[in-house]
């Protein structure tokens, strides 16, 4: 039975190809931008998560600190629910890290000895809002010389500034992206409603005949709904493919630029899974837009009959 509706839908598209093309183009643009925004939001979330979870706080220990005292402080920090991933870094390890960091300039590493570098306790925080109070608390420990943080962006002087700046960027991305995508989705919805209404007007005579020979409302609206779904799926798929190709091309450069910060999925499988999840969401949104648009157009057409 559905084949007759599908055939009617395709015939309708063939009869007015420019209406169909405009609907598909608007939907393609909407879902291209949606895919782009979804990936940007995903990357910014990863960026924020990276800074939130990397060892942000380093408590440099005094040279006279005894191993049992260090161990006691380490255990105290481990027991603190606000703190996670506590790690002891010895003087030798600190030198090794320094050497690795300055490997492109061997002269720098030759000039230093392990005694220059203090041992330290590095840890991250479960929530960065605790940062200042933890830092203040650790500073008061007798075996702690200085407390620093590794996250630094734009030269901010405190950890709170770094995090709040990252959060603001992420929030702007989410809100701005959401508003933009919302506006495009609204435009797509209106274009769909207009085009379906035009289709209904064109098929007015046919609908009246179908009504007289006993067609149910479902029978009458099925080809219209199928036609709108064809627009939506074509738009979703084309927009998604374009964005997918863009990110496929850009990801190696992004991974290279951001280094260890996992702004994009590192493996191919994860990359495809991310895009499949986006496609699934977009198909759902596309279907919803189509269904609501068709219903609105059909109910408006019925009122004017």
């Amino acid at each position, binding site marked *: 039975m559905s084949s007759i509706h599908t055939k009617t839908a395709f015939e309708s598209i063939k009869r007015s190809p420019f209406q169909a093309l405009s609907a598909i183009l608007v939907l393609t643009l909407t879902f291209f931008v949606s895919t782009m925004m979804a990936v940007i939001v995903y990357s910014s979330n990863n960026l924020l998560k990276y800074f939130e979870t990397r060892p942000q706080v380093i408590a440099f220990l005094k040279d006279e600190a005894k191993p049992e005292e260090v161990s006691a402080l380490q255990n105290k920090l481990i027991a603190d629910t606000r703190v996670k991933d506590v790690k002891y870094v010895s003087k030798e390890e600190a030198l090794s890290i320094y050497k690795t960091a300055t490997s492109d300039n061997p002269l720098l590493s030759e000039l230093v000895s392990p005694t220059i570098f203090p041992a330290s306790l590095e840890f991250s925080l479960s929530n960065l809002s605790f940062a200042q109070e933890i830092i203040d608390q650790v500073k008061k420990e007798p075996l702690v010389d200085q407390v620093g943080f590794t996250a630094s962006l734009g030269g901010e002087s405190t950890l709170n500034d770094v995090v709040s700046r990252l959060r603001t960027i992420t929030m702007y991305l989410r809100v701005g992206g959401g508003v933009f995508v919302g506006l495009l989705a609204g435009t797509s919805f209106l274009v769909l409603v207009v085009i379906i209404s035009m289709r209904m007007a064109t098929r007015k005579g046919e609908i*009246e005949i179908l009504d*007289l020979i006993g067609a149910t409302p479902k029978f009458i609206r099925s080809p219209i709904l199928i036609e709108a779904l064809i627009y939506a799926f074509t738009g979703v798929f084309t927009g998604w493919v374009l964005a997918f190709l863009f990110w496929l091309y850009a990801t190696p450069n992004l991974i290279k630029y951001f280094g260890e910060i996992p702004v994009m999925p590192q493996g191919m499988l994860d990359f495809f899974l991310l895009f499949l999840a986006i496609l699934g969401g977009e198909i759902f949104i596309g279907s919803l837009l189509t269904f609501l648009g068709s219903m609105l157009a059909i109910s408006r057409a019925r009122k004017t009959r």
Partner: protein
Amino acid sequence: MIKFNNVSKSFGSIKALEDISFEVNKGEFVFITGPSGAGKTTLLRLLLREFTPDKGTITFESVDITKLDKNYIPTYRQKIGVVFQDYKILNERTVRENVEVALAVAGVPEASWPGRVAQVLKLVGLLNRAELFPNQLSGGEIQRTSLARALVINPKVILADEPTGNLDWETADAIMDLLEKINKEGKTIIMATHNEMIIDKYKKRSIKIKAGRIVSKEKLTDEPKTQPTEAPKVAEEVNEGKQEAKESKIEEKKKIKVKVEEV
């Protein structure tokens, strides 16, 4: 089968029908006659449940259709085959597709369509016109397409609103012969017409309306002669058509096979 009981209908200040009462039995062929504007079409539209009367009841197989829930109207209409004066054919579909639409509307499984369509087109003499569009047909052929569409769902009743109104006498006569043939197979037919020649020639019971009122209910023949419970021949022919279509498909496949072997 169909009963109008004191039915009145007005459109604003215009009284289209007033106190209309009559009955139509199963298997009857009834003319609704009268001049233009008498209320014939309004009567048929009331029976098709396009709108409800202001007063009175209309029963179809003991069901008062004036009180029918709107969700059941499509199911009710599927029991009625309608032929309109202006044909109401889908111009962007072929003759075959126009007939198939009625089957799709009635929810008939697609597998049985070719047989039923072929049979009904054979009945109305349009089998060789099946793939033509309405703009490639004559008025009589379009009306026969409309009749084929009405018949293909094997309806209990056929409503024909001036089916010969736009046709010349010869074509109109051919359509009338077809309707008579269908009636003889047991279908109830209610036909609105103002064509005196047709009324005189076919001598059916005639309900004459003037200015919305019944002025006479003549019974010119001793109809209904038969009151069959089913519409056997059309149904049988439809099934035969199904078989024929199957056989022709097998034949076609055989021909293709032979051609392939030859290659």
